[in-house]
């Protein structure tokens, strides 16, 4: 159990270190990332994939069904291709049409199921689904790459590798909905199924199947165009295509609203790192694996491109960091010491940028699947277990909890305008979460409860005015407006990684840092911020396709040769 690592463990990084936005915004995927854990399970349990239906025309319009038998249950991705005019293509949640729309169906859909879905799934938020659908999603083509790939394949040639790598996907999802949205199944209905126990498992499976659809679609359209000449994608090239995603603010409140889940994710990762750092001696196989991943990582970083003015300068620094790491380990001296991985980590902590340090966290876990992969099974949580407020605690004790867990917040002076420069709100238009500038825009009176640091400061002031021995139950009877904050403080008292330890309404707060952290847990390898509020990413780039899963253990697929 990751609980074996207590706060007293010097190898376990503290929440004050890891729960800061700057470091969270430098996170990279690891072995524990959700889509890697999914594929490990699919390989281990020999999930059976098939494509029972593919009725698509030359424009990409039609219906396809991808099926997977995973243990006791069968899941079907039902895909609808549409003919989307270019001027209607937008990634924004306010879009109303897409190149393709999808639902993950629980079981094998009948023709009647598919017709019902056809009437609703292409309408996305404007339609209604049933609990037989687990996930609702949609995707748009990469205009750059999709046509190039079809053209190349139709002419009998492979697409240009550079073009492939530059984009990394044929289609990108613009929303992947789960857990009861728009009528689909609540996660509670299926989370007890072992293959669905991991976080976002249904969503990750959906995206994996969408990926197969995107390459099948391009190959198929090429073949329709030139049946005698068209070729299919060469497998190594095909694996360089993932599924893109445009991730915006919609994802950000999730981490704040699920404190126990966040704690579980973080402590699994940190416990994994601590385990690896405590290894006394490293054998040749582990060392080789590490160096191989490092070499691959350097190539990945060399190809990482973004125009974002904040992220772009960090990449060459990361490249230099990794070169320095290679020089540091190449001599082999560090491996002759005890706890060499810990030696490497401590060196990185002193010498490298945050991106470099977090990249090394990812590298360190790579050779040690046998030691850490089990932690991926401990990343689920039920927020219900921390919902109850302990009304018997005294105000003095609650105050002590705040001083202990929220020192980072109570020192802030919220009278300074910059400290409350932003506010989170939900827009009337498509019910999107948005960030507003308090001084410039209306709506701050409808602020969402994401201003944790400020709310904790206000609670603290109220508690300091209350009798030390007064019970929280009485206090809340008098001052019910602090209830949501009291709940958070009580969660933090037990689960120290539950809170992002930065002011989420500070004028300089970058929401992309929150988005990146969550996406790193998903298993994203390419982060391309387009502003401080959204980014383009790719999932599954490098991963084996369903038909390839049985051909090897693919453990290091995310580190291309």
């Amino acid at each position: 159990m990751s609980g074996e690592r207590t706060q007293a463990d010097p190898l376990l990084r503290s929440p004050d270190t890891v729960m800061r936005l700057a470091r969270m915004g430098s996170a990279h995927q690891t072995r524990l990332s959700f889509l890697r854990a999914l594929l490990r399970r699919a390989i281990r349990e020999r999930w059976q994939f098939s494509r029972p239906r593919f009725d698509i025309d030359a424009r990409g319009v039609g219906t396809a069904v991808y099926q997977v038998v995973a243990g006791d249950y069968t899941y079907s991705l039902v895909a609808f291709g549409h003919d989307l005019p270019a001027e209607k293509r937008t990634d924004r949640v306010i879009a109303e049409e897409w190149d393709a729309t999808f639902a993950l169906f629980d079981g094998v859909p009948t023709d009647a199921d598919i017709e019902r879905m056809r009437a609703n799934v292409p309408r996305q938020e404007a339609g209604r689904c049933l609990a037989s659908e687990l996930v609702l999603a949609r995707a748009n083509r990469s205009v750059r790459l999709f046509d190039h790939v079809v053209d190349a394949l139709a002419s009998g040639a492979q697409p240009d590798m550079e073009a492939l790598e530059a984009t990394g996907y044929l289609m990108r999802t613009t929303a992947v909905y789960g857990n009861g949205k728009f009528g689909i199944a609540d996660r509670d209905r299926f989370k007890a199924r072992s293959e669905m126990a991991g976080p976002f498992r249904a969503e990750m499976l959906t995206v994996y199947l969408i990926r197969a659809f995107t390459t099948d679609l391009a190959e198929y359209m090429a073949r329709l165009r030139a049946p005698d000449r068209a070729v299919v994608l060469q497998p190594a090239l095909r694996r360089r295509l993932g599924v893109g995603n445009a991730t915006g603010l919609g994802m950000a409140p999730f981490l704040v609203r699920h404190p126990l889940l966040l704690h579980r994710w973080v402590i699994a990762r940190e416990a994994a790192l601590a385990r690896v750092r405590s290894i006394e001696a490293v054998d040749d196989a582990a060392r080789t694996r590490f160096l191989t991943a490092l070499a691959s990582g350097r190539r990945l970083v060399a190809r990482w491109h973004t125009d974002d003015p904040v992220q772009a300068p960090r990449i060459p620094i990361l490249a230099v960091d990794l070169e320095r790491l290679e020089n540091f380990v190449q001599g082999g001296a560090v491996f002759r010491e005890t706890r060499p991985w810990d030696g490497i980590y401590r060196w990185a902590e002193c010498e490298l940028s945050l991106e470099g340090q977090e990249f090394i966290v990812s590298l360190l876990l790579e050779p040690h699947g046998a030691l850490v992969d089990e932690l991926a099974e401990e990343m689920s949580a039920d927020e219900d277990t921390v919902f109850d407020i302990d009304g018997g605690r005294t105000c003095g004790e609650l105050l002590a909890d705040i001083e202990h867990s929220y020192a980072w917040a109570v020192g802030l002076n919220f009278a300074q305008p910059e400290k409350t420069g932003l506010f989170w709100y939900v827009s009337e238009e498509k019910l999107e979460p948005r960030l507003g500038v308090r001084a410039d825009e209306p709506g701050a009176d409808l602020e969402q409860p994401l201003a944790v640091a400020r709310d904790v400061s206000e609670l603290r002031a109220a508690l300091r005015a209350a009798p030390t021995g007064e019970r929280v139950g009485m206090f809340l009877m008098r001052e019910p407006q602090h209830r949501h904050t009291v709940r958070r403080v009580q969660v933090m008292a037990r689960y120290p990684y539950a809170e992002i330890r930065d002011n989420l309404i500070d004028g300089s707060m970058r929401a992309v840092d929150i988005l990146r952290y969550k996406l790193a847990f998903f298993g994203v390898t390419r982060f391309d911020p387009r502003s401080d509020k959204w980014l383009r990413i790719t999932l599954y780039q490098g991963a084996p396709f369903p038909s390839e899963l049985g051909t090897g253990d693919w453990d290091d697929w995310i580190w291309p040769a």
Partner: protein
Amino acid sequence: MIVSLNEVESLSLKAARGAGMSWGLAEEAAHAARWLAVCSWAWDRSLVALLERRDQIAAPMLVGHDISSSRQGLAICPIHAGAAMADLLHLHESVTLYDVLSPIWLVPFAHRRTGEHRSIEVAWAGGACSISAGGAVSAEALGMQNVPLGWIRVELKTDVSSPNVARPLTHAAIPASIQADPAAWAALEQWAARTYVPASLQSRLAGAGAGLSDND
């Protein structure tokens, strides 16, 4: 109409907030609504009625160990009373509440105090119900909306000789479908809409994320 539990909880949260509840109490309302929806009870019409009457409902006040109305002649909001009761049951073995409107809403709050040898017994003039340590709710509990205004006594019973059953977090299996009354749902959406900020061109460009044209 068929809805998901997530939609029940999400809408209830926003509707309660839109009607003026603090975020913490709105969270409680949402939790309780979800719980009642799993019981297939008409939480939606009841919540609409509560929100519409909010000016004629009082906050609770503590008098000794008892929860009473803070405004003479007005009944107590059951969400607020339920939250207060759940808090106080960490302190006292029993709590008596007076004049709680629609007291069925107290049941989900009482439920979460059960477990680990703790069961709950609820009594009122002319009736009683119970929740076992395992979270099983007696049938009378779902009749609690008919309890007239007056006293309700909620008592925690600890019996260490009873098996230490882990309280199931969902007290019952989720029904095949969750039904909602369309008129009530629409009314809740009206309340929820009060929490949304109308879009302006500026907010659309600045606040959300992706730009207006994403062809790449």
